[in-house]
């Protein structure tokens, strides 16, 4: 039920007008056809593997989610309670569309699926996340990833 319009007006306004970094550049990376791309998911849902230490607050680092992860092993530890979790409870693809990516790879719509996916905690200030994101880019490249789907909650 948590669309922006369902929230108290002050909170909806705060979310809609959330201060964003004023970037000086507009980067734009092109690549091969989609059918040749290797795709990874980067979520901001605070996803953690079962048994792993949950995100404790606005932690700026990220967690690693191997492609072999099973749905029962993935939990949401996002600090916000103001979004629906029942969709994810029923079907992790609502937030983490790994099964759909695998299907697209089998059908040839994308080239392949990354060996590893990642999650940040989305309520974190972008500035402290920046070094972690730049370091993550190196990991993605070492996995030959050339396309990332960013999945918020």
């Amino acid at each position, binding site marked *: 039920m948590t669309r922006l319009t369902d929230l108290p007006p002050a909170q909806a306004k705060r979310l809609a007008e959330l201060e964003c970094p004023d970037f000086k550049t507009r980067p734009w990376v092109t690549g091969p056809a989609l059918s040749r791309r290797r795709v990874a998911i980067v979520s901001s849902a605070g996803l953690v593997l079962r048994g792993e230490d949950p995100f404790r607050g606005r932690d700026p680092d990220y967690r690693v989610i191997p492609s072999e992860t099973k749905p029962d092993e993935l939990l949401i530890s996002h600090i916000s309670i103001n979004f629906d979790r029942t969709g994810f409870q029923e079907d992790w693809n609502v937030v983490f569309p790994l099964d759909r990516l695998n299907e697209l790879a089998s059908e040839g719509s994308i080239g392949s699926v990354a060996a590893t996916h990642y999650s940040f905690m989305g309520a974190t200030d972008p500035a402290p996340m920046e070094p972690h994101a730049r370091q993550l880019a*190196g990991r993605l490249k070492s996995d030959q990833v050339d396309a990332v*789907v960013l999945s918020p909650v």
Partner: protein
Amino acid sequence: MGALGHYLEEEGIATVGISLIRPQTENTKPPRALWVPFELGRPFGPPSDPVFQKRVLLGALRLLERDSGPVIIEDFTEDDPRAQRDPAWQPPAVPAGAGDNSGDGLAKRLGAEIPRLQDAHRRWVAQNGRTTVGLSGLAVSEAGHYVAEWVRGKSPPSPREGYSPPLLLRFAVDDVKAYYLEAAAAGTARPSSRQLGDWFWNESAAGSALYALRDACLASDDERLKLIAGNFIVPAARVRSTG
């Protein structure tokens, strides 16, 4: 999320993001984004609808083949069919809402309610092959007991090393909610998140207990507890006075 896309793209990785809040995305100006009209928490739309989800995912991925950016913000116009109420859904049988609303009374009602949902929760796990209960690292009965102690007005020590009591309370509350909402969704009906939330917050003893817990923690002198109470127990859209 838009900032993450910016950093990755600066490092040479092409990105496309799902946008749930269009004004935010317009401010961040990411390289590519597909705005979706779904509720927060459902970036790829309805659960258990692979065809729909794939339309969203492919709609986003295809933006990678455009050469008209940056910035591309496109709209996905189909709404989530699972946002509709399912009139066939029946909430789980729990004792009637009215009762002893003292801290002790609510704690007892919560303690009695959790085992009553056990069969429904087992059905849920059998149906879906998973549960999302587990953040606190406690069994749900233990998580419920820990929450109940707080509802009684106590400040119990954390049973987990490295987790402060307020932090463990936050995770235990998350686990109790997950257990209830999963149990309530067991079966063949397809309730909307609103139906499930209405039941949890308006009908269950757990909902009443969490409202009372929020009020009690907000009145505390402990700033960490106030923070937990104000932000991590009752969703903003559900906050009301318990009178």
